[in-house]
């Protein structure tokens, strides 16, 4: 663990609109975790949504004002980094904001959007990425004596290339037994509006994911994205499975003194 005095990092937290509204525990866990690691965390109050749902459903133009707002709120030089506990929102900023800028340019609207969004692109990090790559820690001093399996969500896995980072963090957690999830890399079937536009296929994918999680004998299925966990967890609750969903931030925030309730 790195001492506070070595780091004087100041980060802006983007819990995401989903976590802000539905999963505040995850946002609180990130605050607790980063603070423990000596990082100064700020929550810019002007933030709302990165625009991912709009963009991915075909409403790129409606996503643009949200992206501009995101950049205005988070682009300040006062922040060394922007941290988000969501692989898909992280991918939205890093991968799709530049693409939005390019498309605007291709539509003859000039460089304005690309320039406006540019400041936030390189300094936005998904939480596990920030911990491993920027802070350079894998042992975050957490304690979570449970059997856990990890689901790598699609955007974290394929867009951001999180790779082994989450597993390395989890393996360093005291008391945690990490078991491999069969078919881990297959999508859980959430896919934003896909979940309601193609509910049958989405539910079938979700049920398979839950079945795989159950087969591991784990108590907890963790992931770095609550959107996917909302779908997986909603399926688990309906199927009344023994395994339950927990965001990785909450596991990493948990300590012997203050265990995750």
């Amino acid at each position, binding site marked *: 663990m790195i001492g506070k005095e070595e780091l004087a990092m100041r980060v802006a937290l983007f819990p995401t609109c989903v976590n802000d*509204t539905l999963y505040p525990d995850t946002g*609180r866990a990130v605050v607790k975790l980063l603070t423990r690691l000596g990082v100064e965390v700020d929550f810019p109050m002007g933030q709302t949504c990165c625009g991912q749902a709009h963009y991915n459903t075909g409403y790129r133009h409606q996503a643009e004002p*949200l992206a501009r707002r995101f950049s205005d709120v988070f682009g300040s030089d006062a922040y060394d980094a922007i941290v988000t506990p969501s692989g898909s929102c992280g991918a939205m900023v890093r991968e799709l904001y530049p693409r939005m800028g390019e498309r605007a340019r291709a539509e003859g609207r000039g460089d304005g959007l690309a320039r406006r969004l540019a400041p936030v692109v390189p300094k936005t990090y998904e939480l596990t990425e920030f911990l491993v790559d920027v802070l350079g820690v894998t042992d975050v001093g957490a304690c979570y004596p449970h059997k856990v399996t990890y689901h790598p969500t699609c955007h974290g896995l394929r867009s951001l290339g999180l790779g082994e980072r989450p597993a390395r963090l989890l393996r360093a957690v005291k008391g945690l037994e990490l078991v491999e999830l069969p078919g881990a890399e297959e999508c859980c079937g959430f896919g934003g*509006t896909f979940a309601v536009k193609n509910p049958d296929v989405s539910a079938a994918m979700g049920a398979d994911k839950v079945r795989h999680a159950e087969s591991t004998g784990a108590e907890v299925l963790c992931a770095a994205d609550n959107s996917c966990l*909302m779908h997986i967890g909603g399926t688990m609750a*309906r199927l009344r499975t023994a395994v339950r969903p927990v965001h990785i931030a909450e596991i990493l925030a948990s300590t012997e003194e203050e265990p995750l309730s």
Partner: protein
Amino acid sequence: MTAAGGTVHWAADADEANRIVTRLVRETGETEVVKVKSMATQEIGLNEALEEAGIRAYETDLAELIVQLGADRPSHILVPAIHRNRGEIRAIFAREMGRWGRPAPDGLTDSPRDLAEAARLHLREKFLRAKVGVSGANFMVAETGTLVVVESEGNGRMCLTLPETLISVVGIEKVVPTWRDLEVFLQTLPRSSTAERMNPYTSTWTGTTDTDGPRAFHLVLLDNGRTDTLADEVGRQALRCIRCSACLNVCPVYERAGGHAYGSVYPGPIGAILSPQLRGTASEIDASLPYASSLCGACYEVCPVAIDIPEVLVHLRERVVQGGEVTRRGVKVTLKPAKGHAAERAAMRAAGLAFARPGVLRAGLRLASRTRRFHPRTLPGPGRAWTATRELPKVPAESFRDWWQRTGGGKDDGRGGK
């Protein structure tokens, strides 16, 4: 190719291609043709068009034969009869082969060996009798005017060499400049489609030769929406597809929905981006195809020619819900948004407005928190799509932003801030 004795025809669309092929077959005086497995001829519905003109087209690829005898539709690019099991195939062969030619042997079992042998005997008769062959091509090499067919069973080789007349219908995107370029694809295609280092049969031909093979060769170059697709900067990458089917095999949606659900000869992720471009987004199925994906990106990861299928899907979603400029037959036209998205557009606009003003968002959140005890477990209308199989998340007593403000960023929180 012309110098080598071939004749080149241009077909702007499916109808024109079908007319050309029908005329060419009629000119030979024949009423039947043998076919090499070909996506392009499926795309234009050639068999049906020939049938109307009184010409019988016999599929000679084993899987296509199963589909044809079963009056069925293909469900996979590479293995069109993947939805059939051995028992079904046995029943189809026993029942149908006699009506199309040599009947299946008595006492046919469902062992793969017996089924393959029955198909061999049935097809051999066709190969030896047919005077006209119809094929597509996997590639065309521009520098020498050579066509290339890649296959596993050897039926293609028979169709390409035995008949007197050979007609090939090939999409214009299949051209590679040189043999050196071809080399790359001859390695890429089998590896990505069947995981073989090399496929069993690779046939190449250039026009006609005096000593062997067909006496007459016709190439029908098929556009059918390809030039228009090329005009679209984002969508054009779909034209790179070499039909390896790797994206189908890895797609969780294809795996569960099956190939027929895509309403086109091109199923799976590539179909979801190709059909709405080649056919347009006017029909209900074509407008829905861009949404037949969770955007998980597995297809992009395996695609040997790096088509960013999720990117094109999102691009086409935009076309469906927003309309926009597209090229149709070389002319720029502005599409209206597809019907049936009005409620969604309104919802997106409302969300956009709330997200533009944190105050509005916050008031909404507080209202949701205050009424959370009354939130139902199942929803009516479109919300049912969620609650039929999944619980709704519980709205928390306090949003993150309220907690942050109340506790000064967690600094004076009783419940585990700093």
